[in-house]
C-alpha cells in the first residue's frame, strides 16, 4: 500500500519532491531498500567473519557462496520479471528438473556439450511457452497454470529417468566446474549469473519491455488501454522465466555432474522469497533485480555460515525463518521513511 503502482520506481525522475540535503538525495536515489539489504548482508558477513574467521573470510569460500547462489540466482532473475508483472511461476523447480534430466539423457550426451546446453534451454523455453500460452491466451490464473506445470514436468522428469541419476559423461561440460576454468578467480557459473543479472537489470530498467512489464503488473487494464499487448507481454514473460530455468539447469548440470528428477527441489519458494525480500511486490507493479540478487546472496550466505558453524538443519530452518521476517520488517521500516 506504500508503493505507487505504475512507473518504474528506480528511475530517477520519480524522487520525492521533499527538499533534502544533497547527501540524502543521493542516498534516496540509491534506494533505501537496497541499502537495507546491503546492511543485512554486511551484518551476516560480519557474523561469519567473527564466528569462523579462517574459513569464512577465505577466497575459496567467497567462490563457493557465489557459485551456490548462481543456479537459484538465475531462476530468481526470471521470477522477478514474472512477479513484477503480477504473475507467479510455481513451476521453476520442476522445469529445472525436467531440463536437467532431458539434457543429460544418454542420447543427448552423444551430441556433446552443445547438445546438453541447447536441450536444457529448449526444454526450459518449451515449458515456459506452455505456461505462457495457458496464462495469456488460455485465460488461466498463473498460480494454477504453473502448478499444473510443476506436477507434469516433475512427472515427466521421473518418467524419463525411472528415478535414476543421469551421470554426465561429456568432459567439456564438467570442466566448467573445475578450478582451472576460473577466469581471474571467478568460476564460470558466477560469470553466467553476473551476465544474466546485468541483462535482467538492463531489460527491466532501461527498455520498453521492462516498462511494459511494470505497467502490466501495476494495472493490466490501464496497460491495455495504453496500447500494450498485455497477452503477448505475459507470454514473453513466462518464456523468459522458462529460459532462465533452462540456463539454471545447465549450470546445475555443471555443478552436480548429473541430472536427477529431484533437481531444483523447492526452487519456486526460494526464488519467490528472494524476490519478495528484495522488494519486488507480490501483487505486481514493482520489481528490482538488484534486490532479488541481494536476497539470493543473503540466503546463500546464511546457509554457508550455518554449515561452517556446524549447525543442524532444524536450527537452520528456525533461523532462516526469523531472518526472513527480520529482513522484511527492516525493509518496511526503511520504506516508510522515504
Amino acid at each position: 500500500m506504500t508503493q505507487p503502482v505504475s512507473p518504474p520506481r528506480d528511475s530517477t525522475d520519480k524522487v520525492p519532491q521533499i527538499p533534502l540535503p544533497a547527501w540524502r538525495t543521493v542516498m534516496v536515489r540509491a534506494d533505501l531498500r537496497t541499502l537495507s539489504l546491503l546492511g543485512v548482508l554486511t551484518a551476516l558477513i560480519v557474523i561469519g567473519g567473527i564466528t569462523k574467521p579462517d574459513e569464512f573470510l577465505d577466497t575459496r569460500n567467497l567462490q563457493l557462496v557465489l557459485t551456490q547462489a548462481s543456479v537459484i540466482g538465475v531462476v530468481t532473475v526470471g521470477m522477478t520479471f514474472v512477479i513484477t508483472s503480477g504473475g507467479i511461476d510455481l513451476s521453476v523447480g520442476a522445469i529445472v528438473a525436467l531440463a536437467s534430466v532431458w539434457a543429460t539423457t544418454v542420447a543427448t550426451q552423444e551430441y556433446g556439450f552443445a547438445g546438453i546446453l541447447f536441450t536444457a534451454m529448449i526444454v526450459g523455453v518449451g515449458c515456459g511457452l506452455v505456461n505462457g500460452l495457458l496464462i495469456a491466451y488460455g485465460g488461466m490464473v498463473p498460480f494454477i497454470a504453473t502448478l499444473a506445470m510443476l506436477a507434469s514436468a516433475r512427472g515427466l522428469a521421473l518418467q524419463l529417468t525411472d528415478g535414476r541419476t543421469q551421470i554426465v559423461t561429456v568432459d567439456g561440460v564438467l570442466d566448467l566446474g573445475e578450478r582451472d576454468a576460473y577466469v581471474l578467480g571467478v568460476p564460470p557459473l558466477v560469470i553466467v549469473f553476473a551476465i544474466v543479472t546485468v541483462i535482467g537489470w538492463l531489460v527491466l530498467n532501461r527498455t520498453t519491455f521492462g516498462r511494459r512489464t511494470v505497467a502490466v503488473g501495476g494495472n493490466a487494464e490501464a496497460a491495455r488501454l495504453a496500447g500494450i499487448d498485455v497477452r503477448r507481454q505475459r507470454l514473453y514473460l513466462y518464456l523468459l522465466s522458462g529460459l532462465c530455468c533452462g540456463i539454471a539447469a545447465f549450470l546445475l548440470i555443471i555443478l552436480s555432474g548429473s541430472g536427477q528428477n529431484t533437481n531444483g527441489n523447492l526452487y519456486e519458494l526460494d526464488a519467490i522469497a528472494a524476490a519478495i525480500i528484495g522488494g519486488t511486490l507480490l501483487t505486481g507493479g514493482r520489481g528490482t533485480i538488484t534486490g532479488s540478487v541481494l536476497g539470493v546472496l543473503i540466503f546463500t550466505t546464511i546457509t554457508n555460515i550455518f554449515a561452517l558453524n556446524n549447525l543442524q538443519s532444524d536450527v537452520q530452518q528456525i533461523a532462516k525463518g526469523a531472518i526472513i521476517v527480520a529482513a522484511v520488517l527492516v525493509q518496511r521500516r526503511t520504506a516508510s521513511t522515504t
Partner: protein
Amino acid sequence: MPEPTPFTNRFTSRRGMLFGAAAVSAGTLLVGCTSNDSKDEEPAANDQPAADDKPGKQVTIGFAGPQADHGWLNAINDNAESRAKKYSDVTLEITEGSNDTAQQIGQIETLINKKVDVLVVLPADGKALTQVGLKAMRAGIPVVNLDRIFNTPQAYRCWVGGDNYGMGLNAGHYIGEKLKGKSDARVIELAGLDNLELTKQRTQGFDDALKNYPNVKKVARQAAEFTVESGQAKMAQLLQAQPRFDALWNHDDDQGVGALRAIEQAGRDGFLMVGGAGALAAFQAIKQDNGVLKATVLYPPTMAASAIDLARALGQGKGVGGLAEYEIPASITLYSAVVDKTNVDQYMPTGFK
C-alpha cells in the same frame, strides 16, 4: 491471489521426503546380532534360494510396491521379478507401483479378491497400510512385509528388511579400524534427510560405533536430502568448514554422486570416504580405487528376491533350507555389509543404477 508462503514447511512437505523414504526404509529397528566383521559375508546376490529348489505345489504370489522413483526401488522390482522367474512353480501377480496410499490399498484388495496364495507388500507407508495387511491375514493369505514395517505383527507373517542402525554401526567400525593408531583422528558425517527416523538410526549406530575408538572424534555433521544436488551443496560447505579431517561417512550413494563432485571441485583428498546403500556407481568407484571413496555400507535390494523365496516357502508350507525350524522365521533383518575393494567383485551384480 493466493500467496504462497515461502520457507514454511521447508522439509515436511517435500517430495524429497518420499524420495528419501524410498531410498532406504522406514523400517523399525530389529537389531539383534550385528557382527563387526564385515569381510566374510555371504554374497548378497546369493543364487541359492532360501527354501529348497525342487519344484513343488503351484504358488501364486501377489506383489505390491511403491512407485519406483529411485534406483533402489527399481532394483527391488527387478529382484522380485527375476527371482520369481527362476521358479517354474511360481506365478507372480505384480501391481503397478504407487505412492498413493488409497491406490495401493485398492491394489492389495484386488490381489486378495483374486485369492493369491501369498502376498509380498512393500508399502509406500507401512503405518497407513497396516489395515489392509490385517485384512489379507484374516482372509487367510499370509503376508510377507518387505522393508517398511506394518504397525502390528498381526498384519504380517514374516518381515524382511534392512538395518539402518547396522549401517551406521558398520560404517563407524570400518572407519574406526582404518584410523586405528592415528591420534586425534577427525571424522565428518553427511547424513540423509533429517526428519526421517531411518536417518536418526543411521547416525545413532555410527556414533555408538565410534565410542569404541577414543582416538576418533566426529567433528561435524550436516544433513542433505538424498539427492545429488543437496549432496553437492552440503558437501561443498562441509569441505570449506573442515580444512582437515580423516574420514567421511555419507549415508546415501545417490547424494554421494553430488558429494564426490564437490570433493573433486574442491580438489580435496587425504581422507577416506564410506558411502551407503550399494549403488553401481559407488561399487565401480571403489573397484577403480582412484578416489576417496573406499567403501560403502549395504542396504541390499536383494531383500525383494528373498521375500519371493519366503513367500514361495510359505505357499508350499516349507521351512528355510539350512535351518532346523519347520516354518520360515517371523522376521529377518538383512546385514549391512561393508563393501570395499577386497569384496566389491562379489557384490557388483547387486549394484543398482
